C-alpha cells in the first residue's frame, strides 16, 4: 500500500473527509490555548510592553505564508511529474490561504511596527520580501482564475509557481542587498541564542501548531470542494451537456 494511492481523487475524498474534523478541532484547540495563554498569562516585555503579544499571530502567520508557498511548489512539481489531480487542486486550495496569511503577517507587522519603530511601514528587507510574496500570490491566483480548462490551468500555474519560486528567492537576496533593515532576527532560532524567552516561547509553539493545523484543515476543505466541482463537471460531461 503506497501513499500515492491517496492521490486518487475518490480515495482522497474519503480519507480527507475523515481527517477534516480532527484537523479542524485540533487547530481550534491549539489556537485557543496558544492565544489565550499568550494574551492573558504572559508578562509584558520589559521594552516592548504589551504590544509584544501580537507575536502570537504575527509569527505563525508569517511562517505559514512562506510554508504555504513552499507546499504549493512541492504540489506543483508532483502535478507536473506524476499528474496527480489532487496535487494540483491542493496547490490551488493552498493559494488563497497563503495569500491571507501573508496579508495577516503584513498587517500585524504594521500594527506592531507602528509603536516600536514609529512607522507603519519600513522598507525593511523582510517587510519588502513579504510584499513581493503577496504579489506573487495574487499573480498565481489570477492565473488560476483566467484559464478555463482546469488541467491547462493546473499546468500553467505549476510552471508559474516554479519560476515564481526562483524569482522569489532571487528577490529576497536582492532586497537584502538593497537594504539591511531594522526587523529583528528570527524569533524562533533553534540554536542556543534564543531571542525569545521561554515564557513567550511556549504559548507561541501552541499558536504555531494551531496555524499549521488550520492551514492543513483549510487546504483539505478547499481541495475537497475543488474535487466536488470537478466531479460535477465530469457528471455534466457524461450527460453531454
Amino acid at each position, binding site marked *: 500500500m503506497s501513499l500515492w494511492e491517496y492521490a486518487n481523487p475518490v480515495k482522497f475524498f474519503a480519507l480527507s473527509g475523515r481527517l477534516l474534523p480532527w484537523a479542524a478541532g485540533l487547530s481550534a484547540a491549539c489556537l485557543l490555548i496558544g492565544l489565550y495563554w499568550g494574551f492573558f498569562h504572559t508578562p509584558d516585555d520589559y521594552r516592548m510592553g504589551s504590544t509584544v503579544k501580537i507575536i502570537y499571530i504575527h509569527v505563525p502567520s508569517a511562517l505559514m505564508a512562506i510554508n504555504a508557498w513552499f507546499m504549493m511548489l512541492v504540489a506543483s512539481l508532483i502535478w507536473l511529474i506524476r499528474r496527480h489531480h489532487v496535487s494540483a487542486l491542493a496547490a490551488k486550495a493552498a493559494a488563497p490561504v497563503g495569500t491571507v496569511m501573508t496579508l495577516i503577517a503584513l498587517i500585524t507587522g504594521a500594527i506592531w511596527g507602528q509603536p516600536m519603530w514609529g512607522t507603519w511601514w519600513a522598507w525593511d528587507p523582510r517587510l519588502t520580501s513579504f510584499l513581493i510574496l503577496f504579489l506573487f500570490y495574487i*499573480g498565481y491566483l489570477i492565473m488560476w482564475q*483566467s484559464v478555463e480548462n482546469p488541467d491547462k490551468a493546473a499546468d500553467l500555474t505549476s*510552471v508559474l509557481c516554479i*519560476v515564481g519560486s526562483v*524569482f522569489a528567492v532571487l528577490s529576497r*537576496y*536582492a532586497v537584502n542587498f538593497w537594504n539591511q533593515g531594522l526587523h529583528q532576527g528570527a524569533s524562533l532560532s533553534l540554536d542556543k541564542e534564543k531571542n525569545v524567552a521561554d515564557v513567550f516561547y511556549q504559548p507561541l509553539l501552541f499558536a504555531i501548531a494551531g496555524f499549521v493545523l488550520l492551514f492543513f484543515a483549510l487546504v483539505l476543505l478547499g481541495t475537497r470542494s475543488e474535487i466536488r466541482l470537478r466531479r460535477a463537471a465530469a457528471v455534466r460531461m457524461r450527460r453531454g451537456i
Partner: protein
Amino acid sequence: MIALLSRDLKLTIRAGGGFGFAILFFFIVTLLLAFGIGPDIQLLRKIAPGALWVCALLACLLSMDRLFALDFEDGSLDLLLVAPIPLEVVVFAKSLAHWITTGLPLALITPLLGIFWDLPEKGYFWVCFSLLVGTPALSMIGAFGAALTLGLRRGGLLLSVLVLPLYVPTLIFGAEVSRLGAEGLDLQTPFLLLIALTLGALSLLPFAAAAVLRINLR
C-alpha cells in the same frame, strides 16, 4: 534561428515605428516623472539612475504582449511548433528580436535623457551600460510572461501583473549599479550579480517559456 530573428526584425520595422514607440514612451514617462517630482535639479539628479531604470523597464513591457500573440493569431506558432526547430530556440530568437527593437534602443537613448535629469558625469556611462546588460533579462522574463498569458482574455493586463514582480531582482541590481556608478563608488558586486541574472534568465527561461507555449497551444 537567424531566419526567425531577421523575420521578426523585418516585421517590427515594417509595422512602422518599431524602434520608435518604446523610445517615445520612455521619453514621455521620464518627462512625466520629472513633472511629478518637481524641478529641484538636486533631487532629480539624485534619483535619476533609478528613475531611468524604472521608466525603461515599463517601456520594455509595452510591446511584450504582442511577442507571441501575432504568431498565435495567424497560425504560424502552430507551424513553428511542429517545424524542425526547437521551440526553445524560437522563444530565444523572438526574445532577442524584442530586445534589439526595445531594450537596445532604450539603453542607447538613456544618455540623451540623462541630460534632462542632469546625471553626474560618470552616470551617463553606467546607466546606459547597466541597461545594456540588464534589458536582455527583462525581455526574456517578459517573453515567459507573454507565453504564459497567450490567448487569454485580458492577457495584456495579466501579463503586467505577472511580470512586474518578476522584474524586481533585475531592477534592484541594475538600479544599484547605475546609482553606484553615478556616485563613482565600487559597483563590482551588483554588477556581477546583474550579469549572472541576465545569463541565468537567458539560459533557463527559454525552457520554461517553451514548456508554457506547448501547454497553451494544445
